[in-house]
């Protein structure tokens, strides 16, 4: 209704259209930030390459999503975290992830996606370690998983979610060590090449699934 008239719904004064629109946009922002438990919109400190993002989403869309009961789906949050990579040697890489989810302790599903290069012939044994906090100039590390890789290209490597929890700093470091499988008769010839393909859109990433509440908490509350 025109400005200056009376609102037919509440009887109050009507706003002109422009300020109605501004009020609505303010309401929309407030409503989205509240529901995402954010005090303000995120400032993007770490730009994400759109090509890497597209590749990651295509990878994940190809994977059948575990069917979740409807009510759990509302409590669920899925995260893709891209790695910063340092190749510490030809057969070893260090992946650093910056996770900012306060609810990280309800993590229940973790997979590391890697694009492997044709480094060595035959089967490779890939070990994934988690770096612990530094103590007296020593960095502890925990073996999370060991996978045998026979072909190049993308690999989705399952990690124990319990091994990834409890990271207070939000920075998670995973070290990859790759060796020819014992008894593998292929001899290492020539200068070894890089293990991972991290160029452009082949960036390694973590796929995580988190429940907003501890499983069953909703049911307890309803009871």
């Amino acid at each position, binding site marked *: *209704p025109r400005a200056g008239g009376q609102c*037919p*719904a*509440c009887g109050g004064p009507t706003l002109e259209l422009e300020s109605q629109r501004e009020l*609505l*946009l303010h*309401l*929309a*922002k407030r*409503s*989205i930030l509240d*529901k*995402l438990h954010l005090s303000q*919109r*995120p*400032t*993007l*400190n*770490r*730009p*994400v390459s759109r090509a890497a*993002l597209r590749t*990651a*989403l295509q990878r994940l869309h190809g994977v059948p999503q575990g069917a979740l009961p409807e009510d759990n*789906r*509302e409590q*669920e*949050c*899925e*995260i*893709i*975290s*891209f790695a910063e990579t340092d190749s510490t040697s030809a057969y070893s890489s260090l992946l650093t992830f*910056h*996770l*900012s*989810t306060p609810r990280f302790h309800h993590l229940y599903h973790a997979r590391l996606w890697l694009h492997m290069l044709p480094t060595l012939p035959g089967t490779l044994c890939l070990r994934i370690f988690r770096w612990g906090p530094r103590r007296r100039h020593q960095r502890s590390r925990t073996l999370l998983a060991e996978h045998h890789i026979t072909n190049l290209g993308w690999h989705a490597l399952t990690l124990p979610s319990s091994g990834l929890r409890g990271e207070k700093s*939000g920075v998670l470091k995973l070290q990859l060590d790759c060796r020819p499988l014992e008894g593998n008769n292929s001899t290492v010839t020539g200068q070894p090449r890089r293990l991972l393909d991290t160029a452009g859109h082949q960036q390694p990433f973590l796929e995580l699934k988190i429940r907003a509440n501890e499983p069953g908490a909703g049911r307890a509350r309803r009871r």
Partner: protein
Amino acid sequence: TPTCEPATPLCCRRDHYVDFQELGWQDWILQPEGYQLNYCSGQCPPHLAGSPGIAASFHSAVFSLLKANNPWPASTSCCVPTARRPLSLLYLDHNGNVVKTDVPDMVVEACGCS
């Protein structure tokens, strides 16, 4: 839910589509491109009190008639959402992680008098 004409004074659902580009948020909200910011507003005369926003059942129709015949309604009632649905969002957090989450009760689907 009765479709809302701007001049409708009675309680109904007012539909508004908000494009995230208009909020300047298209850089961090990747999907969808916008969402329905619907809200409920309108008068709730006594005979509408307690009636759901969608097709009222026989019971609530009779209940409303009883109310309408009672000249002293117990109290005024308000125009509130009676059905809402979640909205799936794909967005970037401040560390550049991609987060996909279903935000519950994000879109108002129906309104009615409390």
